[in-house]
């Protein structure tokens, strides 16, 4: 059953067509990775799904409801949760307050306090909770933002390059975290460059190239697809 259904979406910026007539389905309960070389249109498609860009043409459905015209906050209220590419936290506020702001829409009172501690422990940020978020390392800020996205207990977690700037250990840990949430039933859509990370988490993969869908299928199918390797995976295989 489709949780997200992107139908015939095109996005043009003046004369440049960043995304062209794309169809994409993300099924309930899967970890779906969106990959492709630089300039393929991955981030644009991501921003179209979260509502930061309006599409030039086409429609986007969430849980069978047309959300094409809805603003990002309304999509979040429907059950999406988003982590952007660059760390986007409240830098001048303490770490704990960042988590509280994310939690307060869904929890209150003692329940919120319990959830707050659980998330801070899960993210290894308990000892840093009184620091300003801007004082955290890049990787920790990425984690904090993932924690804020998880605090909403979404049906669909959208992650745009969640491991950018992380060490290999942090990247692996993030992958395991995503897998554990997926095991509990959360659907995840990830835009990612790092193929090792994609191999760690992906169940289904969609490859974008020059703004169009180039290939799609299970992780194994995509890895063995020679045309995909030609446009994107070749260098990664060499590692």
């Amino acid at each position, binding site marked *: 059953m489709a949780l997200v259904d992107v139908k015939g979406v095109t996005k043009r910026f003046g004369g440049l067509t960043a995304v062209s007539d794309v169809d994409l389905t993300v099924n309930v309960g899967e970890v779906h990775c969106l990959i492709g070389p630089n300039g393929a249109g991955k981030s644009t498609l991501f921003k179209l799904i979260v509502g930061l860009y309006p599409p030039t043409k086409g429609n986007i459905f969430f849980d069978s409801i047309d959300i094409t015209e809805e603003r990002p906050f309304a999509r979040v209220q429907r059950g999406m949760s988003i982590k*952007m590419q660059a760390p986007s936290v409240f830098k001048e506020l303490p770490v704990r307050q960042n988590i509280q702001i994310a939690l307060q*829409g869904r929890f209150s009172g003692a329940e919120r306090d319990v959830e707050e501690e659980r998330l801070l422990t899960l993210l290894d940020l308990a000892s840093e909770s009184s620091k300003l978020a801007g004082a955290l390392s890049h990787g920790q800020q990425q984690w904090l933002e993932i924690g*804020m996205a998880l605090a909403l207990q979404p049906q669909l977690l959208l992650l745009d390059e969640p491991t950018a700037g992380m060490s290999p250990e942090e990247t692996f840990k993030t992958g395991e975290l995503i897998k554990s949430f997926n095991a509990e039933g959360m659907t995840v859509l990830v835009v990612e460059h790092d193929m090792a990370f994609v191999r760690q988490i992906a169940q289904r993969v969609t490859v974008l190239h020059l703004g169009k869908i180039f290939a799609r299928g299970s992780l194994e199918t995509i890895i063995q697809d020679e045309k995909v390797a030609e446009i994107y995976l070749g260098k990664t295989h060499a590692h």
Partner: protein
Amino acid sequence: MFKLLDGPQTLGRGRTFWSCFLAVLAAALIYPVFADSYDVGNFSYFLIWVFMALGLCLIWGYGGMLSFGQTFFFGISGYAYGVLAINMGGGSTTIAALVLSVIIAMIAAGILGYFMIWGGISGIFFGIVTLSATLVLAFFLGQTAGPEWHIGTARLNGFNGMKGMDPLTVGDFYIEGSALYYVMVALIVIVYIALRMLVNSRIGNVIVATRENPQRAEMLGYDVRKYQLLTFIIGSGLAGLSGALYTSWGQFITPSSIGLPAAAMPIVWVAFSGRSDLTATLVGSFLLLFGFQTITVYSQQAALVLMGTLLLATVMLAPQGFVLGVGKLVVDRWTRRRRRDANSTLADAGRLQSDEA
């Protein structure tokens, strides 16, 4: 409730702070007993402007929207009070006129804010649009000298300003002198406490989150536009409260209290004080108004130059604000000293134990 008063968005928490607060309040309450009526009247005048400063602190410091429109709403409410008080016949109706004029300012803020915020105006453009609205109102009121410019029996009177309205009155009792001073003190305490609770509440959390990163706040499911509009309406309403109180205090209002020099003043008070904290703004604005008034007695030009100099010094030396900077320094030293005392007590306890062993 106590959690809201002592929340993370306000500097000054705990027993020490509230003891100081009560001591200052007690001093303010007994001040008229010892001071002469001229000084009490002056203090009432300073306190009138504090509402406008607190409103700007909320809009700019907490909400992240630099508004040059405080005197726009001050003027709307001030003139509204005049028109209502004159047309409603004075007396006790002046209280209704005060309330209605603040509501009118808030409605105006709602309309202007809606078009700006829903239109996506932010950053420096927010300042430009609010300043434009302010200058247009001041210019418009300046050319209303002719007899055709009247609302009911209230004449606008152009640059000479509107006059002839009653001060705040209950029955036959004019709220003036010490009575006005006590009303001001009571209103400031109510507004200050209410704002502290607001900024430390869940709504306050979203307001500061929107200031820090509006896109992230929206990505957490908050319609940030509604929170920005609410902030703008409350802050502008406080400017309206200043305007209505000012008109009732002096029984006149002129366009010069709206124009560019007047519009710049709240920015200087709040920037100097520390825009991101209500207490710093309250204390700093009062001190600046007091200083400004004292110097104005000798030379108004010198007072204006001093204000400009203070703004420049703030930008160069203490972008967070001088009063807030000093406040943070005091809090840091106090906390460090308490920690050191606690550590030495622990060390003493340890030594005693080892001695006993």
